[in-house]
Each structure stands twice: as C-alpha cells, then as structure tokens.
C-alpha cells in the first residue's frame, strides 16, 4: 500500500489538472483544429477585439464588486451578531439558502422579480443580477465570519468598554480590526463565487446585461473555438492573481495581529 498511495495520488492530481493544462496549451494553437500546428497569440488578440466580450467582462466586474461589497458588510454584521446571540430564524434561513439548489434559487428570484416588476414597471437587468448575487453570497460571508470568531477573545471588547469606549467605538476600533482577515477571506470567496456564477445569473439577467460566464457558455455551446480557450486562460490567470494577492493581504494582516 505504501507504493500504491503515491502512484494513485499522482494520477489523481493529473486527473484534476490535465484538462486545464491541455485547455491552456491549445489556447496558443495557430489552428482552429484540435491538433497542434504552431504557436500563435491570435486567439488572445481576438478576445481583445471582441467588444461583446469586453462589455460582458465589465458587467461581471460591476456585479461581482457591488455584490461582494454589500454582502460582505451585511454578512459581517450578521455573523458578529450571531456569534453569541441565538437567532434561529436567521441561522436556519441562511442554512436553507446554502442547501437550495442554484437552479431553484434562480427560478424563484426570476418569478419574484417578474411579479414585483408588474407593479413597478421595471425590467430585468444588471440590478436584478446584483440583488440575486447579494442574496446567495450572504450565507458564505456569515460562515467565514463565524469561523473566524471562534478564536476571538471577548475580553478584548470588555476591556475597551471598561476603558470608556462606547459600543460602536468598541466594534469599530477593536472588533473589526481583529476580524479583518476573516472579512477579507469572506470578500474573496464572494467575489469568486459571484464572478463565476452562470445558472442564477442567466435566469435573472436582462437583455443588455450579459456577464462573462454567459458569454463563455454561449461560445462553449456553439462549438470548438480556441478563443474560448484563450478567454478561459485569462479568466483563470486573472482570478488566480487576484486570489494570490488577497491571500497575501490576509496573511500579512494575521501576522500583524499576532505581533501586536
């Protein structure tokens, strides 16, 4: 068994990574056929000349940034409040929202928006996508914040209050700085989940609010185009760099905290 496990693990990692590596390699292929012909940047150039794609990328960023900002703030407050105050209704509904299949979340939000818009004379668009993303990101934030609070020492808050700070000052100057690594981790999770979402987004998006996953989906369905490969590589590398930077920030924050 000592020989079996390393061999097996190597095969498992190959299974996890090979498809992505092959996808990346063929984004540099000079031919449209899935056989290697020679090196070329042409598909990357194609992505940058595709205005629809750039528009979708912009939409995706707007949605992910807004939804992340709102749900991180609301979720952090809620996570802190749930820390040692029982609120079974909110806790259970957050759990339920995590368990709800994406497609059900999507169609129920679609039905809800269409129903409300009958009275408001509005239409589906980027705003409905943002609202939907806030709704499904919230539970992720609360989980990350609650996990972080497990190692939080409440006597620090007591000390601040004893020394004359009021509740808000205590929260703002003591609790939030201590929670910052957790808040960053939550925001990072929200951003990636929101940026990647296709199922819910495609249901609640309006005519002029295509996001990047919707474009990738449409291209993937149409057929093999190395342009999708190039786009995939750029999204993966972009997200990777973003995660790396955010991870470093989080570590630096945690280190600073340990020193003080």
């Amino acid at each position: 068994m000592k020989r079996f496990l390393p061999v097996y693990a190597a095969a498992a990692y190959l299974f996890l990574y090979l498809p992505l590596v092959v996808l990346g390699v063929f984004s540099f292929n000079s031919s449209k056929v899935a056989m290697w012909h020679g090196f070329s940047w042409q598909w990357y150039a194609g992505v940058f000349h595709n205005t629809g794609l750039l528009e979708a990328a912009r939409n995706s960023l707007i949605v992910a940034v807004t939804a992340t900002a709102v749900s991180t703030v609301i979720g952090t407050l809620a996570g802190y409040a749930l820390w040692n105050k029982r609120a079974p209704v909110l806790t259970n509904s957050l759990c339920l929202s995590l368990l709800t299949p994406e497609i059900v979340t999507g169609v129920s939000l679609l039905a809800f928006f269409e129903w409300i818009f009958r009275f408001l004379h509005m239409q589906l668009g980027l705003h409905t996508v943002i609202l939907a993303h806030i709704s499904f990101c919230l539970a992720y934030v609360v989980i990350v914040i609650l996990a972080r609070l497990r190692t939080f020492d409440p006597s620090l808050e007591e000390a601040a209050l004893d020394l004359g700070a009021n509740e808000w000052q205590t929260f703002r100057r003591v609790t939030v700085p201590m929670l910052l690594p957790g808040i960053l981790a939550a925001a990072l999770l929200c951003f990636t989940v929101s940026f990647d979402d296709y199922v819910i987004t495609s249901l609640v998006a309006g005519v002029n609010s295509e996001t990047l996953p919707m474009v990738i989906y449409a291209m993937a369905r149409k057929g093999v185009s190395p342009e999708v490969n190039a786009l995939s590589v750029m999204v993966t590398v972009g997200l990777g760099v973003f995660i790396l930077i955010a991870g470093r920030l989080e570590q630096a924050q945690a280190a600073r905290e340990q020193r003080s």
Partner: protein
Amino acid sequence: MSGGGPPTSFAFQKTHNAMKRLRLLFLSPATAVMALLFFAPLAIVFAYSLLTRGPYGGVMRPWTMESYGRVFDPLYGEILWRSVWVAAVSTLLCLMLGFPLALYIARSAGRKTLLLNAVMLPFWTSFLIRTYAWMFLLRDTGLINTALERLHLIRAPLPLLFNTGAVTLGLVYGYLPFMVLPLYATLEKLDPALLDAAEDLGASPWIALWRVAVPLSKPGMIAGCLLVFIPCLGAYLTPDLMGGGKTVMVGNLIQNQFTTARDWPFGAAASLLLMAIVLIVTRSLGRKGEELI
C-alpha cells in the same frame, strides 16, 4: 482580582447589555435581505405551484394541485429517477476516488497544506471553464477524437460527449474537492498507531485500512457525500453542457419550464419537490442544517 463575589460581574453585565443592543441592530440588514430575496421568492414559487398555467405562459386561477400530480407522471418521473441515480453514482465515485487521495494527503508529513491546496485550487477556478475543458477533450472534433483519427485508430469519432457517462464524469470532476476536504479532516485526526496496532496483530495493511480507518472516518464520509450529492442532484450546467440535452436532469427540467416551455406552475412544483428531496436527504444523514454553519 481580590475580594468576594465575581469581580468583573458589573463590567461584564455592562458589556453584555451594550453589545447585545448593537448585535440586534446588526442582524436587521441580513434579516431583511433573507426575507426579501430568499423567502419572498420561495413564497411566490409556492403560490405559483398551486396555480394554473395562463394562455401566454403566465399564471392564473383556479388554485389546483395538478402540477404536483404531473411531477410524478412517468415521463417526468423518469427524469427525477435519473437525477437521483446520476447524483448517487457520482457521489459514490467521488468517495472511491477521494478516499485514497485524502488518505495520502493526511499521511504526507510536512506537505499537507500544499497538497490540500492543490486539490482545492481547481475549485477556485471557474466551474464553467472546468466543464468546458472536458468538452474540449471529448467532443467529436475534440482533442481525443482528432488524435485517434490522425493515428488512424478510428474512422468515425467516438461518441464521448453528450451522454450520461460524460455527465457523470463532469460531476465527479467538478465536486471531487468537496469530498476530499471533509475526508481529509477526519483522516488527519486518525491516530496512525491504531493502524500499526492492527498490523501488529496480524492484519495486512489493506485489511487494517478497511476494518479500522474506513469505519473511523465515517463522519467525514457522510459529510463528503452530502456535500457532493446535493449539488449533483440539482445540477444544471453539467447535464446541459456535457449531456447536450440527452441526459436531462431535474435542474434542466425546471429551467426549461421557466424559460422555453413557460409552464411556471409545473416548474415551481418541480422546484419545491427538488428542495424537499434535498432537505430529506440532509436530515436523514443525521446532520441538521445548523451543523453546517
């Protein structure tokens, strides 16, 4: 800290009350979001599931249970059954593939974090892109078929994509990290001395694994199976892209009713049925939702 009585009781009480007020305030935005963007939509779906389909695709009265009856129609029952079957097979495959990997990571001293992160990394990349990567390999004009044709091993492309096998592969590939993570968590805590003891007492390494490590990692297995089975059961993207409309699962059925078919009452009934199955499975596996948080 001298003197009688709890020395910090006054300060503690003050802190407690002050922070309590703040917490109540902090709960309200999240409660509002959940009420408006989660429960209200679910309530609408529930109401729609009891209405009748309108002539132009909307909903109208009379109130009826007819949509729920149609979910169990043989035609749709087959879709439901297929969803449960595909999700169960994918979960089992994830368990079989994930267990040795989690065991290897749990036993590799010093490199655990690196190896675990390497499993989780694909999870951070887009699910859609990971699905597309397999389409790129398996299509009729994909890499595998093109290569085999060039090598004159086949004359016509093999039907690798757009079948139930491809959907299962896509689901296993997509959700394997969810299985490895909880398995690793339990296997990491497992004392290696237990396995050594079993071997000292005459068990072969494989028997020791099967009779000692496997039973002791049951909590991780249950958690992993739940984390894989639930998203697989409600999967939409994988059966849509890798099944190509041939392996229709309940997620596709729901999407279709709300878009192309425009039978909202039926789609709503199917949505609620899917949620009911998810909740029953979660509860019966002995993990209340609250433990997940």
